[in-house]
């Protein structure tokens, strides 16, 4: 059998989707679910590394003769679903697969729900599709599926608070999704096509005459969708709510999805609407607000997962700041920071997973005295805090330093001050959490001597260690990743 054209990018979406359907069917059969989930995890982890690079046309029509004088866009235009797979897409999808696997594996000793693992698989498929897709409608479809899978993962917790969060998320997601679809309808009505590369060419030609009002309206509508999917102001509260109500290991996966979707959607929006002069200023404005509000809200939290959720929102804001500055250096640094921060935040979310297993609570007032009761977890957590707070030699230091340099070079010196202050406030918020969990005087549950009998998942600790090693490796050798990011940013062609 010839395998040369077998591992195509579409498989990165199709396999998790098929796996999700199968897992749904075997829901309730614990051993079957565990076996199938384990096999799926192995395949999902391997797929990004063996998939061929390039552009894949999924269900494309053959080119037909040009139909001049008609509004039918059959000829020369590609009506296929197009997936673009390069090194950056590979890094994004591989990281998603890693954290999704962690979210499944850390609960492997318990009874595993088929629907829960199916929703994680659906999350990988939808985020991968958004990262790779080159047509706007495909992106809309998978963004909606992403919203459904995230809401389902929150529902899986099974509490009334989780249901309330999920329904709020779905209502807002429904409105934001419709907003994106209306933007797409305007683009389709005006240009008769959905492929981003084709739209980019047509809009570039049209922009030489002037920017049409239809384009501005489409931009505004799709921008609202971007705000929701990225968890930017004013959707930062619902996004942090979703992270904090889900299991902490799932929260690690979700915040990674959000950061990668933020970057992928921004690239699409930029390619379509780069001619609109206020577009980057708008991105920069909401990103600064998200960064500042996120960190201020994090400082006020008394629940550890909620604190982490707001820090994740603030860090997404920082990624947005680099994108909003829109120079080649700042965008490279931002994409780099999205990868780095996803890794670093995942360490802290996984530490929260261990703490929840031990204490059965996330309330910082009820916790304390875990320093000598939880093995080496406090050490890994402290290193994770250093990583999220952008301290050397960790990877986030490299990316944040580059964002600050780019902001300074682009003529935004005041922005550098805000970014540094945000980093300090992030560190303070996380240290507050660390103190309350590990250093504060022990609470009642410690004296009940339940601590010594409370096991926690070793696997979670191993994943934390692996993520720390990756953070450190990238921090020491940033150029190994950065060179590919710089190539990717240059290839966008409009920065």
């Amino acid at each position, binding site marked *: 059998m010839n395998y040369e054209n077998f591992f195509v990018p579409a498989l990165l979406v199709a396999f998790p989707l098929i796996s999700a359907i199968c897992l749904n069917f075997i829901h309730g059969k614990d051993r079957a679910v565990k076996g199938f989930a384990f096999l799926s995890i192995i395949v999902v982890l391997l797929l990004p590394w063996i998939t061929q690079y390039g552009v894949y046309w999924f269900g494309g029509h053959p080119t*037909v*003769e040009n*139909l*001049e*004088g*008609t*509004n*039918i*866009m*059959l000829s020369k235009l590609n*009506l296929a679903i197009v997936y673009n797979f390069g090194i950056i897409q590979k890094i994004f999808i591989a990281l998603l697969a890693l954290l999704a696997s962690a979210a499944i594996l850390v609960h492997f000793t318990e009874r595993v729900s088929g629907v829960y693992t199916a929703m994680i698989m659906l999350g990988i498929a939808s985020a991968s599709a958004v990262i790779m897709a080159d047509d706007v*409608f495909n992106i*809309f*479809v998978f963004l*909606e*599926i992403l*919203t*459904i899978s995230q*809401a*389902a993962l929150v*529902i899986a917790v099974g509490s*009334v*608070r989780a*249901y*309330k969060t*999920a*329904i*709020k998320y*779905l*209502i807002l*997601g*429904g*409105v934001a*999704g*419709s907003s994106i*679809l*209306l933007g*797409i*309808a305007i683009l*389709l*009505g005006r240009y*008769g096509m*959905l492929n981003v590369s084709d739209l980019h060419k047509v809009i570039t030609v049209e922009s030489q005459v002037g920017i049409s009002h239809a384009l501005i309206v489409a931009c505004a509508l799709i921008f609202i969708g971007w705000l929701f999917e990225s968890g930017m102001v004013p959707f930062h509260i619902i996004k942090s*709510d979703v992270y904090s109500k889900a299991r902490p290991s799932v929260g690690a996966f979700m915040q990674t999805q959000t950061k990668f979707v933020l970057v992928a959607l921004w690239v699409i929006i930029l390619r379509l609407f780069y001619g609109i002069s206020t577009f980057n200023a708008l991105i920069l404005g909401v990103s600064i607000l998200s960064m500042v509000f996120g960190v201020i*809200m994090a400082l*006020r*939290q008394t629940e550890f997962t*909620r604190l982490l959720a707001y820090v994740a929102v603030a860090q997404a804001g920082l990624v947005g700041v680099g994108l909003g500055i829109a120079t080649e250096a700042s965008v490279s640094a931002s994409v780099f920071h999205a990868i780095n921060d996803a890794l670093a935040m995942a360490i802290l979310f996984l530490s929260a997973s261990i703490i929840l297993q031990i204490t059965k609570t996330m309330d910082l007032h009820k916790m304390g005295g875990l320093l000598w009761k939880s093995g080496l977890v406090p050490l890994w957590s402290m290193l994770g805090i250093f990583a999220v707070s952008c301290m050397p030699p960790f990877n986030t230091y490299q990316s944040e330093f580059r964002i600050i340099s780019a902001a300074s070079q682009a003529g935004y010196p005041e922005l550098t001050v805000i970014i540094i202050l945000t980093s300090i406030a992030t560190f303070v918020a996380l240290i507050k959490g660390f103190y309350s969990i590990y250093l504060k005087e022990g609470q009642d549950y410690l004296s009940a001597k339940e601590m010594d009998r409370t096991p926690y998942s070793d696997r979670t600790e191993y994943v934390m260690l692996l993520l720390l090693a990756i953070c450190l490796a990238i921090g020491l050798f940033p150029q190994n990743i950065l060179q590919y990011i710089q190539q990717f940013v240059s290839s966008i062609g409009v920065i």
Partner: protein
Amino acid sequence: MSLETLFQPMCFLTAAALVVVGLYAVIFMDNLLKKIIGVTLISDGVNLVLITGGFNKIVAIISPEMYEQGVKSTAFETLTEFPEFAAQAAFPLPSALVLTSIVISVSIFAIMLALAIRLYQHYNSMSCSVIFKEVDE
């Protein structure tokens, strides 16, 4: 003005009305069920915009081969050239997109309704001011 020329503007107006009513329900109505219906109204309005954008006098064509079959029927005997036929045909792409969009809307609607039932069972009320009384920061 003929009904045919009014058809498209009326469809757009209906779509705008659906979106506005939906937004009103989502923002101002207290009943959770009405909010959920509001979301579906918005979605329906957008679908209507999409399908009206592709509307044209005669049925959609998807390939020159279909045209060959089409001209053999008496309905299109006046249209002798393919470009002439194509210029008057509906754009088939929005119809396909709307189908997908409807499927997604229905999925979201189903999950929202299931959640609303669970919340009703717990709070014995559909009022958002009751359900979301304890506000999380």
